[in-house]
């Protein structure tokens, strides 16, 4: 499968009163056509910021894209003008955000908000846009789409709103859909529905998906590959099977350990990760996870490990390279 997006050494920082915040620190990955990539990490690890950087949605100032490339079909997005980016946003690369209540404009109807994308990118007139919007709403499973059109976001339930957001995102049949924690704000049952919806749409449209979440459980049934991020670095990058069956980075291991699993016996306790998320002001000396790591050695505190390939389709940024046998 051809590569559709290639991110190389992306670095994003923010100027604040208290110093320079190093939000994204040289991450690199590839996305192939039709592929689903999961991006996992805690709040503040840089997953959202990296995506917004690619889309050019980080206000500069106070943000600074300090380096790297984001090659969409071999053309660097980071070097494009605002004008050029606008042609890509919503049309070739679309985003779905976390909280549909705040991400949809409360004073405009759903039909209007979806329709304007169609009119802008697909050169439809008002009637055509309206018709297509009805089709889209139906595709995402909103009942009575011809009436839902003229409703306002607050008139929908949380799940419905997210479906509408998705409809808005896929309206122009994008090549890449970036979903930034789209189910975090939803009920567990609704979460499952949304995931199913996205899978179905993915199959119908054939788009590549980047799915950001802090919830490893969702990734399991959705993505082919996963990158795990911590403090603006990628710490593990592998196929989804590898990550679940054979996690090697201490952070990933802890994350999985902290995940309640159906097949856990009653005696096994949930392992929470001790310590606090890192202060991102200033780059750390050594591995950013060192303060909280169970397996830390001296070298970890001195040198920040780069991503090393430990198996085909499996890279980790760790000096220790934890084997499954090391776990008690």
């Amino acid at each position, binding site marked *: 499968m051809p590569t559709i997006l290639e991110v190389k050494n992306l670095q994003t920082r923010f100027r*604040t*009163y208290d110093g320079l915040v190093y*939000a994204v620190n040289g991450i690199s990955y590839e996305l192939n056509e039709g592929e689903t990539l999961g991006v996992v990490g805690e709040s503040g690890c840089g997953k959202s*910021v990296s995506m917004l950087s690619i889309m050019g949605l980080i206000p500069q100032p*106070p943000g600074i894209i300090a380096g790297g490339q984001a090659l969409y079909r071999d053309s660097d997005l980071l070097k494009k003008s605002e004008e050029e980016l606008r042609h890509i946003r919503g049309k070739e690369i679309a985003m779905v955000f976390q909280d549909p209540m705040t991400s949809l404009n409360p004073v405009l109807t759903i039909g209007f908000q979806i329709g304007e994308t169609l009119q802008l990118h697909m050169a439809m007139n008002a009637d055509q846009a309206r018709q297509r919007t009805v089709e889209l709403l139906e595709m995402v499973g909103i009942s009575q789409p011809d009436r839902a059109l003229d409703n306002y976001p607050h008139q929908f339930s949380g799940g419905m709103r997210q479906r509408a957001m998705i409809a808005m995102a896929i309206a122009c049949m994008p090549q890449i859909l970036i979903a930034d924690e789209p189910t975090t704000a939803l009920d567990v049952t609704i979460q499952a529905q949304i995931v199913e919806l996205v899978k179905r749409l993915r199959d119908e449209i054939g788009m590549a998906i980047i799915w950001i979440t802090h919830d490893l459980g969702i990734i399991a049934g959705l993505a082919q590959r996963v990158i795990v991020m911590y403090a603006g670095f990628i710490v593990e990058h592998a196929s989804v099977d590898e990550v679940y069956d054979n996690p090697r980075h201490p952070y990933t291991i802890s994350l999985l350990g902290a995940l309640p699993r159906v097949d856990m016996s009653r005696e096994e306790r949930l392992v929470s990760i001790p310590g606090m998320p890192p202060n991102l002001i200033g780059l750390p000396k050594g591995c950013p996870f060192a303060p909280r790591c169970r397996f830390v050695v001296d070298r970890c505190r001195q040198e920040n490990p780069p991503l090393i390939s430990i198996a085909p389709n499996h890279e980790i940024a760790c000096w220790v390279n934890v084997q499954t046998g090391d776990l008690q």
Partner: protein
Amino acid sequence: MATAREALPGIAEEALATREPLTPTQLAWRRFRRHKMAMFGLFLLAALIVYVVGGAFVFPEKFANYVDTGIKLQAPSQAHPFGTDAVGRDILARTMYGGQISLLIGLAAVSVALVVGVAIGALSGYYGGWIDGVLMRFTEAMLNIPQLFLLIVAAKYLGDKIHNFRAFGREFSGSVIVIIVIIGFDSWMYLARIVRSQFLSLKEQEFITAARCTGTSNLAIMFYHILPNSVAPIIVNATLGVASAILTEAYISFLGLGVHQPTATWGNMLEDANRYLETAPWLWFFPGLMILLTVLAINFVGDGLRDALDPRTMVE
């Protein structure tokens, strides 16, 4: 709710999470200091206070009230830097003494409003029920009655009821007290509403339930537990209220219905200005300027306080 104020999507809060916590007062002062305009306002205010108070040491009050129609309506000169008024009094000195009264009225009126407003707001917010209903209806009614009109009527009616009195070796017109009281009694409503909403939200908090469990009296709860926690918006509102009170006094006195002789205020110095508009602009310019600078300074400071004490504004 909305992830607003996010030039830094949640990063800054995370990044700052591991720093040493400052006390609320320290944090507030730090934020206040960052506000260049607020600091400027503070200096301006200090300068004005020095001006009006210090003036008393430079010019005796007799000089400020010294009538000499021979030199009336003179333009600013070396002898009289701000000129003289319609009966020959030095305007510079009068702005100093007038300033003392204007500022005093502002502070005193707000104090009255604070007492009334906090009392009503606290009772309303804490007890709720029909007390709240009645008090709030009353507050709303008072809010709907146009302030300046009512004050003018009250000032007219009560104007001469209080006699001149002596304090600090100087004589003051009774109208000063009148003005303070009526302005105070017509501006408590805003404070009452703020205090009430604070009390409403705070009384449900756990530390209040805890206090009740230990048998603390209602009054003690209100004053020792809830009130100290609601201080922030009260301070902001009261500060801005001083500016409002000074302006109100100026308007009433300008219309001739406020503070009378022998006491000068910036407001009643403007009284004659209308008549001598063309010929003696210094009559209204200097007192007007004084009011402007004072209100401006207070507004700057109030703005800074609002930002410094508002827990929601974290990043600029």
